[in-house]
């Protein structure tokens, strides 16, 4: 138990520090790297809670895809981060104030909670699934009990794909496209020109 809590505090403190550094570091590449560190520590926290599937998902999706994409965008695009940060010092106090109020609210409400009295609390739900590992537990319900949600999620991804195409695709006349019909219908006369080549002269072209 003590080892577990030791690791919890280690991962939690590193993830907190690195998420602060994401916001404050000057170099955008450093920001992204700190973001990756934050994700790693969150994944470790998931493992501590026994949610190994979510941890792997976080690694694969957030670090493998999204954070790397961020890194590409930061390095490829010439974004002037100095002007983007201009409002930082002006707006920071408001942001800190709002964040602080929200933080205090959450702390107060969690301290004010009597977790023993809850009728159907989190801890109880965990016990029933303890014998089956996390991935299998998800697999048991994802395509049966929650098939409806699974289908809805598929539709959302479809909209995301269509949306990305709509917003980025531009019709240009200069682009040469392959027209299968045109290719198939091409006759021999259109494409081949037979010329008698006299010896020693060659064709004119």
């Amino acid at each position: 138990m003590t080892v577990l809590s030791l690791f919890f505090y280690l991962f939690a403190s590193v993830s907190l520090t690195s998420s602060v550094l994401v916001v404050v570091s000057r170099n955008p590449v450093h920001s992204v790297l700190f973001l990756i560190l934050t994700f790693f520590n969150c994944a470790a926290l998931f493992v501590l809670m026994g949610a190994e599937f979510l941890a792997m998902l976080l690694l694969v999706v957030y670090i493998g895809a999204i954070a790397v994409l961020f890194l590409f965008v930061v390095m490829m695009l010439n974004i002037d981060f100095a002007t983007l940060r201009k409002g930082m010092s002006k707006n920071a106090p408001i942001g800190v104030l709002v964040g602080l109020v929200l933080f205090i609210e959450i702390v107060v409400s969690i301290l004010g909670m009597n977790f023993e009295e809850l009728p159907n609390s989190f801890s109880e739900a965990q016990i029933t699934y303890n014998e089956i590992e996390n991935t299998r537990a998800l697999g048991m319900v994802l395509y049966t009990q929650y098939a409806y949600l699974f289908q809805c999620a598929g539709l959302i991804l479809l909209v995301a794909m269509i949306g990305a195409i709509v917003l980025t695709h531009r019709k240009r006349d200069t682009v040469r496209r392959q027209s299968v019909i045109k290719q198939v219908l091409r006759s021999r006369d259109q494409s081949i020109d037979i010329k008698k080549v006299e010896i020693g002269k060659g064709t004119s072209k």
Partner: protein
Amino acid sequence: METSINFSKFLVILPEIFLTLWILFFIIFGVFAGGGNLAKQRMFTLVAILGLVVTFILIFTSDWRAARLLSDLFVQDRLAVFMKLLVTFTGICILLISEKYRSFEKLFIYEYPLLILFSVLGMLIMISSNDFISLYMGVELQSLSLYVLASMKKDSNKSSEAGLKYFILGTLASGFFLFGVSMLFGIAGTTTYTELSVILVNIDNYSPLLALAVVMIISSIAFKLSAAPFHMWTPDVYEGCPTTVTAFIAVVPKIAAVAVIIRILYIPFGNIYDIWYQILAMVAIISIFVGAFGAIVQENIKRLMAYSTIGSIGFVLLALSSGSQQALESSLIYIVIYSLSVLGCFVIIVSMEKDNVALEKITDLSGISRTDPFSAICFSILLLSLAGLPPFAGFVGKFYIFRSLISEGFVELAVLGIIGSVISAYYYLRIVKIMYLDETEEQIIFGYNFSSKLILGISSILVISFLLYAKSVVSFIEYISYSVS
């Protein structure tokens, strides 16, 4: 163990299944049909409308009795059926009126009707969700389509700005929603409405974590409803979007979100009324006053309609904050009247043009009573209805809201609401004054086609003659609202 599936129960979700399949067919159809010209776009709109009409008929003919299926993720009752019918009907109307606007804004892409279908599907899922997770799925489907629709005019900076603002603030609201739901799950161990309504009654009502969860969930739905103080995106998005998309955002998602907030407040949070009524009343009063004062200085008619929406949503929430059966009825009556009036207003706003350029300044309307008396009369009727002047429909809606508030003992709220309503009458009347009394040198024209003229005429007639059939509407809404309690 019973393995056979009861297929007759699945008929209830047939409209959603049909619309999904129709959308998938439409994607393939649109890709192969190509189409950068008007005739093909007409065909696409027709295909989309056909899909919505069949969905409408399927919803209407489905079993109206209460049922829950798909492991309690999906619920069917009279409220769901009614709101779904309203959403599909207004969706059809928006597709009909957007034809002309798209032709002169050169919005010749078939994804426009496609994304509207997606959005309507998301709203159907939202309306009949019986679980916070299926609600979230519906909300995301609905708003993701709207973000894309908002930034559809690619050559316009304002449209891109609108899309981006809507997207960033919308995802923030979704984040708050999920945070609230996760806290609720931590407390109760479930996210299903019907189970929550049983569990939440046993908990000490003033548990601060529960209050925080409720605040987060309500504020994220209030964001979707564009209620103040979560309204910041509304004027910019309304102004930046293509006008037909503005019309869509102003009417259809609001109906769905009202259905959602009614269901949330009356079923899972039904027994913890003490936690939410103050929040709702405060949001409502702020919305009414932001709507009333914000609209006064506006020069752009779309921004003005944004503030009008904020104010009207304020009245719906004000009604709900008393938490009674009567409040439920009055808010439903109000949202029906609101969608009818705003739909009519947007037929006119969408059609405002001059030399094939869309116009959106309020002063462009000056003196249209002489050049186009039909539009002037219809617009005046609809605006006066929104202002809540007797004998138009809006008056009846507001009357029922104030009556339900007073009968529950919320006299202060009713008085504040009436003050807000009187202030907001100023800017509605100002437009009427501009249309009838101001002189003009430049003449704008209204490019109606037949269907938009029909919708405008019908909505105006329905609004002006509402008192004649108010009784039957009210008794029908009573019948609808008894399914939730």
